[in-house]
Each structure stands twice: as structure tokens, then as C-alpha cells.
């Protein structure tokens, strides 16, 4: 019973992180029809930025903020400098570009920060608390994880649903040409979308790293889990990405707890294949998926 509960709690916490990462992928997919595989190393390198700041004796929160801001800047810069030139070309070009970035950022991180494992601090406890006899696996950092992802999601909802800027961003994503005719600066909206996505990605990078070890590849599996979560949710839907993240987090937590942590990625692959075979539009779709 205790193990079941704790597996579930761990899964939900992890699920929130996957949800954040999936959200980052969906934000970009919706506007530019690109899966940004470079999201993983981008989040990795911004975590290293935080680590550098923290190592220089600043507080965790200064590092945290620095990572998010550098994510914002990195996302915008990559959209502007790398992705913009292939706009309108076959999508495969843009995807290959993100893979090129993947390799480059990896190598740069290894050159600058070294390839060894380094421990990353957590701002809150990473031990569960005791309720009577039962040890509950909900840690202070776990609560912070869930809370920060929820806050970011609410802010995104407020932006997209409640502001003029959000409306223009959605218009640019849904119909580029019409948005342009109406006077929406589509290019700026895309840059902003990439920047926001990279910020959310950076957050998930920080949350995965917290109280654990970082090295240049530590986010590689996260991009897989984020992608599977996004596909579970239908790839086009931010809400779906969040639900997909939670479902995946819990499923993988059970695989890890009861079968073996080595098989987590294989389980994610299995889930992805089952979804693609049975409900290719995601768990929540009614209509046939958009074919791209």
C-alpha cells in the first residue's frame, strides 16, 4: 500500500515535469509545425547556467531566475537565427536543424562545463515526510515542482486566453497568412513563442536536475518523455500535453518501481506505439488527426 501510494506520488511529480516539457514542445509545434528536438539540450545548458551562478555563491533563486531568463533569450535567438531562414522550406529541414543544434549544444556544454556528473542543489528538502508509520514520498521539492509547473501553466493560460498579445499569438499559430493580412507581426509572435517554450523547457530542466546529478545528456530522455506525453495529448493541445504528461509520469513511475528503471524509456516507446496504433490523434481526440 505504501509503495503503491508513493509510486503514484512520485509519478505525479514526475508527470508535472514531463507535462511542462511536453507543453514546451506543443507551443512550438502549434505555431511552426516543428518538433524542437533541441529543447532537451537547450534546457540542459540553461541548467548549467544556473549551476554556474550558484557555484559563484549566489543563491539558488538567482541561479533559477538566470536559467529561465537565459532560456527565454536562447529560444528567441534560435528562432531568429536558425529556424527563421528555413521558414517555408520543407519541415524536414527545420527538424534536421534542431537536431544539428542538439549535437552542437551538447558538444559546447561538454567543452565548457565538462562531461562529468555534477550535483545540482534543490531549494527544498528531497526527503519525504513521516505520517505515523507511513513514509510519504511527497518531498518539499516535489511540492515545489508541482506548484511551479501549475503556476507557469496558469500564467500561460492567462497570456493566451486573456491578453491581446496571446490572441495575436494564437492567430499567428492557427493561420499565418490571414494573421499577416490582419496586421499581426507573425515573425515576432513566432520568436516570442519559441522564447516562451524555451523558458518552460528550462523550468523542466531545473526541476529534473533539482537534488540530482547533471551532465550534458541528462535531458536526452526527457525530450522522449515530453514527446510521448505530447503525442498522448494529441500534439496540438496544451491541455492534452499536461494530461499526457501526468498519465505518462504515473505509468513510467510504476514501470520504474515494479519492473526496472532501465526499462522506463522502452515503456515510453511502447506507450507511444500503442497510442499511435489505437488512437493516433491522441487520447482525447474525436476527429481524425491532422495529417502532416
Amino acid at each position, binding site marked *: 500500500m505504501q509503495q503503491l501510494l508513493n509510486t503514484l506520488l512520485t509519478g505525479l511529480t514526475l508527470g508535472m515535469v514531463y507535462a511542462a516539457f511536453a507543453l514546451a514542445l506543443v507551443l512550438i509545434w502549434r505555431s511552426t509545425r516543428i518538433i524542437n528536438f533541441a529543447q532537451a539540450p537547450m534546457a540542459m545548458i540553461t541548467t548549467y547556467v544556473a549551476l554556474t551562478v550558484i557555484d559563484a555563491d549566489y543563491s539558488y533563486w538567482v541561479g533559477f531566475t538566470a536559467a529561465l531568463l537565459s532560456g527565454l533569450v536562447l529560444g528567441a535567438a534560435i528562432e531568429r537565427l536558425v529556424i527563421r531562414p528555413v521558414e517555408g522550406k520543407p519541415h524536414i529541414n527545420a527538424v534536421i536543424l534542431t537536431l544539428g543544434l542538439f549535437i552542437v549544444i551538447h558538444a559546447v556544454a561538454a567543452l565548457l562545463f565538462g562531461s562529468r556528473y555534477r550535483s545540482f542543489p534543490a531549494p527544498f528538502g528531497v526527503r519525504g515526510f513521516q505520517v505515523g508509520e507511513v513514509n510519504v514520498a511527497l518531498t518539499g521539492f516535489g511540492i515545489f515542482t508541482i506548484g511551479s509547473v501549475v503556476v507557469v501553466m496558469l500564467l500561460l493560460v492567462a497570456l493566451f486566453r486573456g491578453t491581446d498579445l496571446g*490572441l495575436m499569438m494564437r492567430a499567428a499559430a*492557427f493561420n499565418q497568412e490571414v*494573421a*499577416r*493580412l*490582419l496586421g499581426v507581426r507573425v515573425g515576432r509572435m513566432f520568436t516570442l513563442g519559441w522564447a516562451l517554450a524555451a523558458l518552460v523547457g528550462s523550468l523542466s530542466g531545473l526541476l529534473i536536475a533539482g537534488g540530482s546529478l547533471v551532465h550534458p545528456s541528462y535531458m536526452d530522455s526527457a525530450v522522449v518523455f515530453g514527446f510521448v506525453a505530447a503525442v498522448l495529448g494529441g500534439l496540438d493541445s496544451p491541455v492534452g500535453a499536461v494530461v499526457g504528461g501526468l498519465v505518462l509520469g504515473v505509468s513510467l513511475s510504476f514501470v520504474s518501481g515494479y519492473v526496472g528503471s532501465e526499462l522506463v524509456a522502452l515503456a515510453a516507446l511502447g506507450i507511444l506505439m500503442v497510442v499511435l496504433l489505437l488512437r493516433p490523434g491522441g487520447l482525447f481526440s474525436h476527429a481524425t488527426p491532422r495529417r502532416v
Partner: protein
Amino acid sequence: MLEVHDLTTSYGAVRALSEVSFAAPSGQVTAVLGANGAGKTTLLRTISGLVRPRSGRVLLDDRDLTRTPTEQMAALGLSHVPEGRGVITELTVEENLRLGGLGAGRFRPADLDRVFALFPVLADRRRATAHVLSGGERQMLVIGRALMADPRVLLLDEPSLGLAPRVVAQIFALLRGLVTAEGLTVVLVEQNARSALSIADHGVVLNLGRLVVRAKASVLAADEQLRHAYLGF
């Protein structure tokens, strides 16, 4: 007044427009007619900057718009309603309308009320996703959305496409009313020449990317030979 001088546009090696020149006088409706593939849509897309011309110029009230980015056209007073209506179906009716004002940098709630007064159907469904609208309602929505930018010139691409004749008549009557009441300049691209000429002041006829005739609408409608050759009625 919208003027087009010697406009030439190519898609790769294919020339879609060859040295087209005409003027659409202020406060009047100019119909652009011609068969499928005559270059009508390309003409509008070139004017609004979606396609760059190889040569020639576009002037709006003597201001050169030839190299102006599409995104700035709405704020400069030129609204282009594309073919196939261009409703953003994922957004609500009201969001579509707001966007019309926002893009031009001038959203005013009063404009929203004005459009709703013009198209009461839209007011009833303001919170509905535009996806659920009928063809006629979508056409009203895009015209309303263009009006939110308070344009001087409205470019309309095939507004009658796929609509019942009764709905077409209704929309055209409304358009005529706007022109008369507010001095709007309209460039109306139509395959349906008969309906278009019924509300137009002037007409130009394109054939294979070249301008073949430019005349008063009544003259065009009366010229039997021309009608047979280019307009199909």
C-alpha cells in the same frame, strides 16, 4: 484612391501578371473580372504584399506600398479579405473581430458594436467558435473583421464563392451600402461577373495575366461580345 502601375508578377518561370495598370477610385466599387487563372487572385495578393511583384508599383493615395510588408497594410488602411474567406476557425467570432482591430493597432469596443449592428447574426454568436458558422456567416465575419481596421480600401477575393444566390445578394447589397454611406473603396474580385457588375461602378477584365478592358460597369455589362469572350454570361 488605389493605383496599380505596370504590375508584373511571376511564380518562378510562370508569369501570372503582365504590366497590369488600373486605378480604383475612392468611394467606388471596382470589379476585377476574368476567367479562372486570369490572375485576379494574384493581383490582390501582389497589392497586399503577399507576393512580391517583379516590377511595377502600388500606390494608396499617392503613397507607395510596393515594398511595404503585408503586416503593415492593415494599419495603412488597406484590408485584404482572402479567397476561401480566411476565417480563423479555431477562434471565436468575437476574437476574430478583435483581431481585425488589434492587427491594425486600433481596437475599439465601439467598432465591435458597429459590426454587430451591421451583422446581427454575428452578435448572436459572438462567443461561438467560428468553426460552427455557415458559409454566409463566415463571409460576414471576414468583412466585419476587415471593417474593424477602419480601412480606406477593401480588397475582396471571391466573396460569392460557394454561397447561395440569396446570400450573395444580401452581402453585395450590404457592401454597396457601406460604400455609399462611408466612402469605402472596394476592389472586388469575382468569377460571378453578373452579380459583381450589378454593384460595381467600374470593371477591369483580366485575361492570362493581362488587362484587356477597363470601363464603366454599365458599359461592360452591356457589351455582349465582351461578355461572351471573357465573362461567360
